[in-house]
């Protein structure tokens, strides 16, 4: 079972309840080595519960879990050095500096202070190394938390909402860092509420709701299969909804916020038909996104 191409993580019919709440419901997922896997779903869907069961921090009621061919619970000393975990709340040693914190974490894995320095460098925090953990900015906190996760060079990395509460630039930087991690062969399992980010970063995603896996595939596949197609947005008034409905290739028409929205699986045909009816420069093409798929599965949030 330790062959290099066996899956990194295998969940088989994993369930867990908290009283009446089903936090995980017959979840079966297999994650390959080197895969970047996203767990998506609304608040309370069961992402943290699932990820913490894989880490061995919580116990499933039924079902089995294997990480790198080993059971994560009870506490498995052979497995622990090979996984890295960032919990949903960032954890730092009280009143230490960023550098001291990482040196302490490195020591927990029996590693010398030099490893801490490398991790600090990896996340670009060398200059802030002597700042107390309570004084660094939100983005730096997040990066420090990831450095703590990577200090012992684990094969599988778990990140629970690493990009929550970051500004757009910090999020982009972090996304790049995660891409680099994937490039050096790490298996990454992460949760996020940023669907645009998941769409660009993840090889595959699982969309969870009330503990159940509603969809599981690559973002591209999910989008293609959803049949949502592309939306063409035209300022209203250029042509009537009735006219638009008769155009070649149009599957649906709606008026939203003063804009006419055409839905299609054949963008080129619709654009050809539109040519002459409306100025094509005014037409905005919006390909379906993972977010569209997600909202269709979960149901748009109630106002």
């Amino acid at each position, binding site marked *: 079972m330790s062959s290099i191409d066996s899956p990194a993580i295998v969940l088989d019919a994993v369930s867990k309840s908290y009283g009446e709440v089903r936090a995980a419901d017959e979840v079966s997922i297999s994650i390959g080595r080197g895969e970047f896997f996203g767990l998506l779903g609304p608040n309370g869907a069961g992402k943290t519960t699932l990820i913490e069961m894989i880490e061995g921090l919580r116990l499933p009621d039924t079902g089995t879990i294997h990480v790198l061919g080993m059971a994560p619970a009870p506490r498995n000393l052979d497995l622990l050095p090979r996984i890295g*975990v960032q919990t949903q709340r960032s954890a730092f040693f*009280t*009143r230490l500096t960023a550098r001291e914190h990482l040196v302490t974490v490195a020591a927990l*894995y029996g590693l010398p202070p030099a490893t801490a320095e490398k991790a600090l460098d990896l996340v670009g925090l060398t200059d802030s190394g002597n700042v107390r953990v309570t004084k660094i900015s939100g983005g730096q906190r997040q990066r420090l938390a990831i450095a703590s996760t990577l200090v012992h060079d684990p094969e599988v990395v778990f990140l629970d909402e690493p990009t929550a509460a970051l500004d757009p630039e910090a999020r982009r930087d972090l996304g790049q860092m995660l891409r680099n991690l994937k490039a050096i062969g790490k298996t990454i399992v992460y949760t996020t509420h940023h669907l645009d980010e998941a769409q660009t970063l993840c090889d595959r995603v699982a969309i969870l709701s009330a503990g159940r896996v509603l969809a599981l595939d690559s973002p591209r596949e999910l989008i293609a299969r959803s049949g949502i197609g592309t939306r063409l947005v035209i300022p209203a008034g250029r042509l009537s909804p009735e006219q638009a409905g008769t155009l070649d290739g149009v599957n649906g028409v709606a008026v939203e916020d003063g804009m006419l929205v055409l839905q299609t699986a054949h963008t080129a045909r619709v654009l050809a038909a539109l040519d002459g009816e409306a100025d094509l420069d005014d037409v905005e093409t919006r390909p379906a996104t993972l977010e569209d798929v997600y909202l269709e599965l979960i149901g748009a949030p109630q106002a």
Partner: protein
Amino acid sequence: MSAYAALSRAVYKAAVRDATTVFFTFAFPLIFLVIFALIFRNQEVADTGRGYVDYIAPGVLSWGLANAALFGVAFTLMQWRNDDLLRIIRLSPTSIWSVIGSRYVVALGIGAAQCVLFVGVAMLPVFGMRPDQTWPLAIPIMLLAVTAFLALGLIVGSAANTPEAVAAIANCVVVPMAFLSGSFYPLELMPTWLQEVSRVLPMRYVNDGITYAFTGFGTMTDYLISCAALVVFTAVFAVVGVRTFRWSNDS
């Protein structure tokens, strides 16, 4: 660096960088000591030929030791659990005994520093404490006291989920115990039934033991009973502490 050494350093730095900890560990008991010693300056305890300071200093020392060990451990445990640090440790190959051991060695260091400081101040000419030659007997008692109150701190740290709760519970445990154990006020002056109550309190034995070491008040047998009692208290607290221990606030 071993995990144990690194954790000890982390705990030590967290303690000395916190003004509140430093104040309540060193300055606060010292203030008590100075006030009592000044109030009763030049007064002798009847029939002993000894000054009050010889009784008050060991009492304040017992209380200071117990207070610092209990609070320190309870705060660290509650904080590390709330901040998910216990999870970080649990997810590393480091054993829980390294965690408790590192906290223990720091508590012992702090206890030793308290002893030197409080006794040193009490021996200043203004206060005039004169320790007996049996003073080295204070060392085993100090070790046992820190151990027992550290074990008690583990229970408090698991029971409480907020700093306020730690402070409330720890104060409710330590303050009445200090009064009932004769740390501030000689037990002999209390009603007999209260003296009996004090026998179920660990601080009484700390107080008796340290007082015997510094003043020779009591007998060697009493001293040994104090040591044994603290061992028993430690065992009981440790069993409860291990049972109530939680790695995180979720399950």
